[in-house]
């Protein structure tokens, strides 16, 4: 397998490299024929970076995140995560994954949902409790641990799912449109919080979004993708400062980057 080679190659990736993809291809076999979801995707992501993936629907953003998480196996190319194969990284519980929908288990309270990974990873009870409280506080949900998911608004659920991914303190966070279903204000608020969390913890974040302002606001690096087959059309290193109040979005630099992203998107876009 290609993955096996990757492990040996990765040795030369610098200490700071968390994700290193080289010429990754992924083709799905379906009943209608093959769908090439990723083509020749190469990317290096350093420690502590915040990387956004943006692109039209079906361009392979989710697929790429899933490849990093070892939920899909590439059909070509090499990829390594923390110097291991993605599969090894998954076994080592190297990352937390936040799915597009909150995906809380409806039969568990919010508290127990957050504890789910901790139970599976064998933390003791006291520690489970401590961490659950800590992360719920982090996402502004203290006091809601006894509620069931359906008793919370969509935004609160989404925050709980982020808390769940944070609970076991992985250094790598993979987030697939976590704020897709939220309204703009809640989204702004969560963006702010996510940014401050990232600044505090120095985690490496891979973040998929449809929203140009969101991508520009959050990222140190923006990866623009285009579909059929999914490939990278542009990688933009953000010139914005680390400190970002919300109204940075009205700044010229911001609009400049947003414009470049939009152009990149439109270039890759066929018809609607």
């Amino acid at each position, binding site marked *: 397998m290609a993955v096996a080679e990757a492990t040996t190659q990765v040795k030369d990736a610098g200490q700071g490299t968390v994700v290193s993809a080289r010429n990754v291809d992924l083709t799905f076999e379906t009943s209608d024929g093959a769908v090439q979801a990723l083509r020749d995707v190469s990317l290096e992501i350093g420690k502590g970076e915040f990387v956004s993936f943006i692109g039209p629907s079906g361009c392979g953003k989710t697929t790429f995140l899933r490849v990093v998480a070892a939920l899909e196996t590439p059909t070509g190319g090499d990829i390594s995560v923390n110097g291991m194969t993605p599969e090894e990284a998954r076994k080592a519980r190297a990352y937390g*994954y936040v799915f597009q929908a909150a995906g809380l288990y409806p039969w568990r309270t919010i508290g127990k949902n957050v504890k789910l990974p901790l139970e599976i990873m064998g933390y003791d009870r006291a520690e489970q409790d401590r961490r659950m409280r800590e992360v719920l506080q982090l996402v502004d949900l203290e006091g809601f641990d006894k509620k069931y998911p359906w008793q919370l608004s969509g935004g609160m659920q989404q925050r709980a799912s982020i808390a769940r991914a944070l609970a076991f303190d992985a250094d790598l966070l993979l987030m697939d449109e976590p704020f897709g279903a939220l309204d703009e204000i809640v989204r702004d608020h969560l963006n702010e919080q996510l940014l401050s969390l990232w600044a505090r913890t120095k985690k490496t974040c891979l973040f998929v979004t449809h929203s140009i302002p969101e991508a520009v606001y959050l990222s140190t690096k923006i990866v623009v993708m285009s579909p059929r087959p999914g490939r990278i059309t542009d990688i933009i290193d953000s010139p914005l400062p680390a400190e970002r109040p919300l109204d940075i979005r009205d700044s010229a630099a911001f609009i400049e980057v947003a414009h470049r992203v939009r152009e990149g998107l439109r270039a890759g876009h066929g018809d609607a």
Partner: protein
Amino acid sequence: MKHGPAAGLLRGGAGPLWIGAALVCAALVDLRLVPVVAVWAGAWWVNTWLAAQRRTRVTTLAVPLLFGLTLLVLWEMVVRLFGVPAVILPPPSAIGARIGAEVPTLWEDFVQTFLRGALTGYVLGCGAALLTAVAIDRSPFLQRGLLPVGNFIAALPIVGTAPILVMWFGFDWESKAAVVVVMVFFPMLVNTVAGLAATDAMQRDLMKTYAAGYWPTLLKLRLPAAMPFVFNGLKICTTLALIGAIVAEFFGSPTRGMGFRISTEVGRLSLDMVWAEITVAALAGSAFYGAVALAERRVTFWHPSQR
């Protein structure tokens, strides 16, 4: 609760016309039909009015009760007015009297058929189906092979299987339990297998990202997610179990049991006793169903259908 039934009657508009027409038709066919239709129409009206009220615990109980009561009254009236012989269809009053008089026998039969036969078979059959479902869950091969064949076996009519099982397992409740096991096994299996597959890909992927093994995934994700399906199966199986245990007794039994009593008393023309047993069966069956439905509410409180 300002308007009474009378107000509803006035507002009903087309209602009275309709009922009047029905009464006239009834009178034309047979005069004895008039009171029957009148009672029916009256009760229906009260019920329509009750149902239009705000939904409370009282109305949700009263409406079906009144409906059932109406059926009983109509039954009694038809039997009396048309002089139906008691050896064909006894009136509810006679059935009630018989139930009162035969409590010990009814109880003995209930214990034999319901507690020993149906319940044992239900627990064994559903339990075995549950375990089998979990066991074959890991093998898509077995699933694809077993389920179609299972549908085939589930289609075997009980009147054919019961004599065979009585031959194999003897006359007492064991053979009745075996009939029940055969009847409930596949419906339960199919539902549980469907339930175990009911998790969505994202929920399973979440478990993968935690590198969770088979057992944690089963216990923490798949079984809880399967519960609505499991209960669907359990509910279907309640009525199957009772019917199976009773019918199996027609093909050989000790001298007790609901099916034994029914078949024997028909031969003796004690139709009131037959209906007394049927009443017990219907009550027990409905209660059994209700109990499982209640358990379902408790266990799958989180499911949208329960909220």
